[in-house]
């Protein structure tokens, strides 16, 4: 394979893996209107649990195990903010901090796990596809499978009555509170689902790069948020399935741009700063646009002062 193609394939693989976290935020941030600050820790949690289970000889079980762990983490965040009177942002931060210890404990007190000799979903798919023309894409296929599952799940789920209630909870909590829907339950289920996707994302990344470490998820929230906002630029106000696909595209585009930047000798450590800047501008530009009429009015008022009385 040509170096360019393999570069694009790697960008696609990494982009699609992180798109799972982007889809998690699509649910919690775009739909439920909760900024889940436990995302970084939950991503690492997925990586740790997935790796430990894979190392114990259950590469397939690793995936649902990681998702289950993510759900528990989401459940904790939800309980803190709905039942214990802790602010939504603070709940995320608290869980994120706690998860640091939990993650190291899961890895048996070490801050890094090596999966070089362990069987993972990717080594399994490699074996299965070794004699077929698809062998070069064995990783990509597994990832596409996971992403398709999540996109289809979200598209169907958000159409159900529960999904509508979840969107309304994010869109107009006043309305939902005065209807017969229990927002506590909606938020709890929503965060459990979104965090299971974040953990899935972490588990797949660890399996792909054959190692998990305590920093694997750091900055993930901002990276995913940047991707989400890029995706919104593609599929802003479309229907839910399109917006979910937009989120996936956003993740890929972010990765691609990053990969290209690396080719032009941008140092790897710049990734986080770039994602921060993208998030800042993605949120700032619409805000600035909304302020334009006010500034125009101010300018008009200032210049029109001499003519007062004519109107």
């Amino acid at each position, binding site marked *: 394979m040509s170096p360019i193609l393999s570069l694009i394939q790697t960008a696609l693989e990494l982009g699609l893996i992180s798109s799972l976290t982007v889809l998690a935020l699509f649910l919690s941030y775009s739909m439920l209107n909760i900024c889940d600050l436990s995302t970084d820790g939950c991503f690492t949690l997925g990586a740790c649990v997935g790796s430990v289970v894979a190392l114990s000889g259950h590469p397939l079980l690793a995936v649902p195990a990681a998702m289950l762990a993510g759900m528990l983490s989401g459940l904790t965040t939800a309980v803190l903010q709905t039942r214990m009177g802790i602010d939504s942002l603070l709940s995320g931060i608290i869980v994120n901090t706690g998860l640091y210890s939990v993650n190291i404990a899961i890895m048996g007190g070490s801050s890094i796990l090596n999966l070089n000799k362990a069987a993972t979903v990717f080594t399994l798919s490699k074996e299965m596809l070794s004699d077929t023309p698809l062998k070069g894409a064995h990783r990509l296929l597994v990832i596409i499978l996971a992403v398709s599952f999540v996109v289809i799940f979200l598209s169907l789920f958000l159409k*159900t009555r529960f999904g509508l209630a979840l969107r309304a909870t994010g869109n107009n909590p006043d*309305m939902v509170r005065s209807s017969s829907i229990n927002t506590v339950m909606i938020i709890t289920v929503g965060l459990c689902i979104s965090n299971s996707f974040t953990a899935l994302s972490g588990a797949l990344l660890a399996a792909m790069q054959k190692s998990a470490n305590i920093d694997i998820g750091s900055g993930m929230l901002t990276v995913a948020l940047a991707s989400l906002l890029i995706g919104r630029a593609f599929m802003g106000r479309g229907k839910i399935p399109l917006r979910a696909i937009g989120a996936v595209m956003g993740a890929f585009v972010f990765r691609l741009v990053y990969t290209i930047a690396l080719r032009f000798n941008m140092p790897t450590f710049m990734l986080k700063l770039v994602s921060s800047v993208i998030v800042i501008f993605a949120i700032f530009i619409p805000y600035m646009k909304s302020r334009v009429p006010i500034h125009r009015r101010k300018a008009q008022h200032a210049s029109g002062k001499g003519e007062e009385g004519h109107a």
Partner: protein
Amino acid sequence: MLRLENVTKTFNIGSASAKKALDDISLHVRKGDFVTIIGSNGAGKSTLFGAICGDFFTDCGSIFLDGEDITMLEEYRRAHNIGRLFQDPMRGTAPGMTIEENLALAAGRGGWLSTVTKAEKAAFREKLSLLGMGLEDMMEQQVGLLSGGQRQALTLLMATFNPPKILLLDEHTAALDPATADTVIKITNDMVTENSLTCLMVTHNMQSALEMGNRTIMMDRGKIIFDTCGEERSHLTVSDLTERFSDIAGRALATDRMLLGL
């Protein structure tokens, strides 16, 4: 249908700003009654609705809805039986969701994992067309794009889609322009009659307080100071009402909004 017994609510108990918003209120609303509620600002009209809906728990007294004691029931557990509209047309609908999705949420049939069926869509269309606002052809549009009047009419439809045991209208036309307010009032009347709903309506418009419904109560400083229905009510005029108020409350009913009937 709805019975309040000696309901009292004081906000900010124990502080200098403590305010008795509901003062030993007892009220019995019969099935099919349409009660209009008037009173100056801070009389406790909205607080009364808040108590019925469970925005807060009352300090003492009991509230019964259709024989069931709902005094300490969580808000969302009683909401199924109560339809409620606010003055703010933005409050009752989700702006980022389509008309159809909003209605589907209000219709709320089937389990959590059910989706909108063709039959339901047809029912939505039919009900929307009754509003006479052309909303039936905009079902895929986001509610945020509708005007205040359209949103309020939609909210009304959502609140009565599954006829509630009681409908509470809290100055639901006050934020609309006069012509739109008239339309929404007409829709309200139609819906209440059609579903023979039991209804409480707070209004600042003394004229419509007397014209609509079959009973009028006047509130002041957390108490019901005047309650009229039947023969006596049918002879009342707006000026009678203001006179009655100053007789009982010992001061003039002083809000321009009320006198001007805005």
